[in-house]
């Protein structure tokens, strides 16, 4: 699709590998409640960063400041090199926001919504029409293009919302909890769209409460908790923050299970399902030791699985304070 669209390709090529989003010392409070406390964040151009955090962590406030809807109290935010406070117009020309609440005109049809965006971006009648048709096709909304939004499903509205954000191909796209409330299939569709955008060179910042979403999409993840960035790095680097995973050993019968439990005193027992869980320190040392001991005692193992720490472990370890 992008190959048929030289304008889109041309805008991607010359972009310098500078930071598309540069946040330094960002603070915001509402009344006495400190919502963002000295937040630093850098998003390199053409990458996806996920801002991960529980409800009330300050994700949406951060997104609102980045997209010029709310002014920061202190600190600086630059989008594509433009300061969000001093150079609002330039920021607005380079950023697209798809918020948590669908920002669509429910009284119009999908096509009319896109044409409205085209007109407001001053594309010209013909260009706006062509762009609308292209986006309807891409977001699988052709059949519903001429029907009012009242008939759209949640996933369709979200896709239209994102399509409206993309009418003028913004360099930076901010997605605030883009898949909240969507069914699994719509979620996958949206993920696919995000990956395509990134492949075309768009920079994406997305907020999410879903760890698998951050893991699936993001090059880097920043964990926001209580208004502070408590961890930042690649998904793999973050997973390494939580040492080790565990081995899960299941046994066919109770005698084998009991013997194994005495051989492995550190294991956590689950008597009902005859499963032993052994913590690993990373590496294969623990696995070798466990298998050696079981072999030596000639204990038959029904099933063995190795669990590396996932982002859930990281998330709960890092946001322990605020998670109820």
């Amino acid at each position, binding site marked *: 699709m992008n190959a048929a669209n030289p304008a889109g390709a041309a805008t991607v090529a010359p972009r310098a590998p500078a930071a598309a989003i540069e946040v330094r010392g960002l603070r915001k409070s509402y009344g006495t409640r400190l919502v963002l406390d000295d937040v630093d964040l850098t998003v390199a151009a053409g990458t996806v960063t996920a801002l991960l955090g529980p409800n009330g962590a300050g994700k949406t406030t951060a997104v609102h400041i980045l997209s010029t809807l709310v002014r920061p109290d202190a600190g600086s935010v630059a989008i594509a090199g433009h300061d969000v406070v001093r150079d609002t*117009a330039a920021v607005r020309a380079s950023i697209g926001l798809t918020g948590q609440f669908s920002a669509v005109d429910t009284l119009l049809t999908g096509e009319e919504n896109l044409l409205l965006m085209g007109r407001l971006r001053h594309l010209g009648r013909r260009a706006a029409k062509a762009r609308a048709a292209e986006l309807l096709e891409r977001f699988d909304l052709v059949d519903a293009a001429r029907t009012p939004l009242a008939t759209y499903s949640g996933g369709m509205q979200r896709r239209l919302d994102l399509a409206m954000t993309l009418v003028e191909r913004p360099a930076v796209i901010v997605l605030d909890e883009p898949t909240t409330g969507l069914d699994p299939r719509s979620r996958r569709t949206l993920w696919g769209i995000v990956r395509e955008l990134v492949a075309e060179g768009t920079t994406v910042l997305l907020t999410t409460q879903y760890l698998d979403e951050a893991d699936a999409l993001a090059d880097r993840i920043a964990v926001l908790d209580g208004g502070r960035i408590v961890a930042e790095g690649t998904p793999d680097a973050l997973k390494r923050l939580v040492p080790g995973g565990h081995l899960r050993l299941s046994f066919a019968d109770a005698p084998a299970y009991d013997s194994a439990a005495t051989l492995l005193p550190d294991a956590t027992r689950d008597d009902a399902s005859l499963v032993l869980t052994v913590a690993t320190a990373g590496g294969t040392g623990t696995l070798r030791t466990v298998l050696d001991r079981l072999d030596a005692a000639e204990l038959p193992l029904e099933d063995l699985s190795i669990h590396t720490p996932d982002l859930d472990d990281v998330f709960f370890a890092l946001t322990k304070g605020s998670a109820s």
Partner: protein
Amino acid sequence: MTTAIDRPASPRGGGAGSNGPRSHVLADTLTMLDRTMLHLVRYPGLSVFTIVGPVVILLLFVFVLGGTLGAGLPGVDPAGGRAAYLAYVLPGILAITIAGTAGGTATTVSMDMTQGITARFRTMAIARASVLAGHVLGNTIQALIAVALVLGVGLAIGFRPSAGPLEWLATAGMLALVAFAITWLGVAMGMQAKSVETASNLPLVLTFLPLLGSGFVPADSMPDWLQGFAAYQPFTPIIETLRGLLLSTPLGWSPALAVGWCLVLAVGGYVWSRILYERRSVR
């Protein structure tokens, strides 16, 4: 304060969209007006309601109550009470028609605010003036269409104004100014309301005002305390002006007071909306 790298504008920002928001205010206003008009065409239900309500009140007051009410008007022959009352009440009905459209205005504005599309417009650098003007102009036009239709019903059931072309022109001007002022109030109320339901109810206050003025019975037939309110509320001079223009009753200071009130209401609604626009469009 900033560590922003000094780079030329984003290549995507270099197109037609970056001439600055100022140069697009007119074009954007027209786009927003078209959007409002499309809503009206697509969903005529709300508009129909703003016309049906006043027409029902008109028919009720003229055919059910009109004979008796008309006979009580000063200097009216009891035999011609109904016709006299139709002439008396019609300016009040026109005022109620315009006041009633504020509910529709507030509803659509509130929908925009709660659905997040206003936030989208803000991130797109569309001037606040364009967004608000789209609402105000579109709904003023709607109010004028409604008032013209209600006036048409009045003429059909026997309203015979004595106005000449000049008076008709002045009447149209007065109605347009009132519609403009009331629409600004409706926009502000739509922004003020936390939900669409509240938004549709807030402006109901406005539709009661003509009743508490000289719209349905002469104010001097009311108790003293109500007379005081009737004399100093905006709809009394507005109705007296319409009555004077259409039926050649004495105008006095009414036109000046009416214009003054409209300007006060319009500016008040504008300032109110302006203050709320940025605060309320973010949830």
